[in-house]
């Protein structure tokens, strides 16, 4: 008896049918969506972060702060007399998913703008979608610079607002010999290129440059190499869980903050808990905002956030996400429309008082002016500011105004 190979296809046949029924309603919805998310009594905005997978740990907190900003705006009557309606999507820590969800938000939900992304990879994946569809993305995380898309607003720091000030601080403290440690991906590699150029121009010496795979947890060899090189300081661009292993193993090999300062640019209040305060207390970090940053705006932000999320801390990317929503709303109000080109025009030069202080959007680069702050991790897990640039620094994603950086981009 011959085995009926095609018989199983009967089952397969049911599936596309189910798909069609599932999606059938959607084509109808799309038709009356209107343009620019500005239809009926609400304005739709997209919130696109990883709610599942490895990045969820960080991105959920940013999503929460963006939702807080949306609620605040709605409580004050919304924008242009309409309430904001958030459409949240899960990027699932997977870059192609980010691109596809961005497409869905733009084409199906017809949102006025999207707030989202964390990793550079997710931003790079979404970039073509926003550029081709002439839609707006607000990206809230510090990143490696060398990018300035006309359809992205960057509310996190670029390199001259975080890495360069971090180096300035080390130089001020007389640290001449530094060692570079990073996870093996784009941000650390670009950051280290900049650090090497800076070191060369400022009489500092780079003793070593090491990368470990994402999720790496075995640092004894690296600690041994650092011990042998005897640097004055380490510049750390490790990401995520690797930081826990690195600091635990560094500390147990006898290197604490007094013996070997480690300047980190990816460790915020949220991460300190997992690393263990005893392993990292006293170490410097470079950001633009801390939960302890002084000012009424910040006090209100921290209070409102902790009222919604008990025991939570607020961190730099969360604040940048919160800022993004408020900046967009202010630009829409100024433009009197959610039209992308009008909003872009209105956003240029726009200034707001936000938790980190006065934030101004730089028109040509669509980045924001930010104050750089070096903080030291306290025994209670919070971060105390010990140094700041006083004034907001003009964003310079291509480091054009730094002579030592020529040839980097």
């Amino acid at each position, binding site marked *: *008896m*011959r*085995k*009926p*190979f*095609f*018989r*199983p*296809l*009967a*089952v*397969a*046949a049911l*599936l*596309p*049918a189910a*798909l*069609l029924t*599932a*999606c*059938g309603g959607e*084509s109808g919805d*799309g038709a009356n969506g209107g343009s620019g998310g500005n239809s009926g009594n609400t304005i739709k905005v997209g919130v696109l972060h990883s*709610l*599942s997978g490895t990045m*969820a740990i960080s991105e959920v907190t940013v999503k929460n702060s963006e939702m807080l900003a949306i609620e605040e705006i709605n409580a004050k009557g919304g924008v242009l007399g309409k309430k904001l309606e958030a459409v949240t*999507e*899960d990027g*699932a820590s*997977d*870059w*192609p*998913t980010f*691109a*596809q969800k961005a*497409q*869905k938000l733009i*084409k*199906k939900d017809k949102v006025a703008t999207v707030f989202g992304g964390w*990793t*550079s*990879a997710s931003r*790079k*994946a979404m*970039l*073509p*979608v926003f550029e081709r*569809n002439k839609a707006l993305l607000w990206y809230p995380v510090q990143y490696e610079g*060398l990018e300035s898309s006309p359809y992205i607003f960057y509310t996190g720091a670029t390199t001259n607002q975080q890495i360069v000030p971090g180096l300035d601080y080390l130089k001020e403290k007389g640290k001449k010999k530094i060692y570079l440690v990073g996870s*093996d*991906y*784009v941000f650390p*590699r*670009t950051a280290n*290129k900049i650090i090497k150029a800076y070191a060369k121009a400022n009489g500092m010496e780079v003793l070593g440059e090491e*990368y470990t*795979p*994402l999720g790496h947890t075995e640092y004894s060899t690296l600690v041994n190499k650092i011990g042998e090189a005897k640097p004055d300081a380490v510049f750390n661009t490790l990401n995520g869980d690797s930081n826990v292993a690195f600091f635990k193993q560094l500390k147990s090999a006898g290197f604490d903050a007094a013996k070997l300062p480690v300047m980190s640019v990816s460790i915020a209040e949220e991460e300190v808990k997992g690393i263990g305060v005893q392993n990292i207390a006293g170490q410097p970090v470079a950001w633009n905002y801390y939960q302890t940053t002084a000012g009424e705006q910040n006090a209100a932000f921290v209070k409102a956030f902790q009222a919604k999320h008990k025991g939570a801390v607020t961190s730099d990317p969360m604040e940048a996400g919160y800022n993004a929503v408020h900046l967009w709303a202010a630009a829409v109000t100024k433009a009197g429309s959610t039209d992308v080109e009008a909003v872009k025009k209105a956003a240029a030069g726009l200034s707001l008082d936000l938790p980190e202080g006065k934030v101004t959007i730089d028109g040509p680069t669509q980045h924001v002016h930010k104050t750089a702050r070096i903080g030291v991790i306290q025994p209670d897990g919070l971060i105390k500011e010990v140094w700041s640039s006083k004034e907001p620094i003009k964003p310079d994603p291509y480091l054009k105004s730094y002579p030592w950086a020529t040839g*980097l*981009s």
Partner: protein
Amino acid sequence: MSDRLRGYALFASISLLLLVVAPLALPAFRLDELAKYLCFAIAALGIGLAWGQGGMLTLGQGVFFGLGGYAMAMYLKLHDAGGDLPDFMVWSGVEHLPALWKPFGNVGIALAAVVAVSVAIAVVLGVLVFRQRVRGAYFAILTQALAAAFVILLVGQQGLTGGTNGLTNFYDVFGRDPEAEGTQRTLYFVTAIVLGVLYLGARQLVKSRFGRLLVAVRDGEDRVRFLGYNPATVKTVTFAISAAMAGLAGALFVPVVGIISPSLLGVVPSLELVVAVAVGGRYALAGAVLGAVVMNYAKTSFSEQWAGGWLYLEGALFILVMTLAPKGAVGLYEQARDALARRRGVPAPAPTAPQEVAA
């Protein structure tokens, strides 16, 4: 109606559904998503062949998917750059086009490489591994380690591969704008047709003498050897075919989704493909296709509703399928049919479920 006729009728109606009904009924971005699922289905078809028919549990299909995808993406990148360096190389500090990239400026070479590189690596690996009679669990773990190593290598060579970001941002796909709805529609049709052709080809292969030999190798490798055949050759050829399918799937994936990155190729995505095949039904080629489309569709729509829940659902579904219906959805259909037939008093056909060979 005979089985055969009924089979063709079904194949025709599914083709009709995919090629006519779906493009008319689905909004553009949903059609694009369906195209993505069909890409995974092509790779799953290869797994169905290697694992379901040949008993080789390959947990490293992501490697071949990636090789095909990167070959295609490298061509598109070079084409966009038009003689200059691709954008990511500029910011990775690469000054001259690496030699590895040069051949991929030629569309013919790039398209040939999609299949050829995957096949070549699969053959080398197959010859080494199968000749040494590495099989079962050892083969599975080896391929898994291969996927892990491949990802680390890709990520580490940022100037050459774009690192974690992968390759993305293509402006021109064979003379068309990749974001235009017309292009996406065309890509969808291409993917669907490739899947159909490969399905028919794979089915033909399974029905052939070679296919019967393959099943024999799965069910009793040593016995096949005693009969005078060389199981290593049979396995290597099959493994190479499945690698070629994964390579093609990757190459189609790049223009459809617009990105290829290491996160698509590692241990977990490779395992997820195998899971999809198991859920659909590994012993039938259609089961592999069905599983890939359903699981990916479920993942997308479920994560839109309840993000964290997908892992529970995927895990639970998987445990249930493995314990209660090891032959997958297609097997369930057969089980139900046989049960029905028994009730009607017709003797059920002899069980064809193979006994898996222990390592």
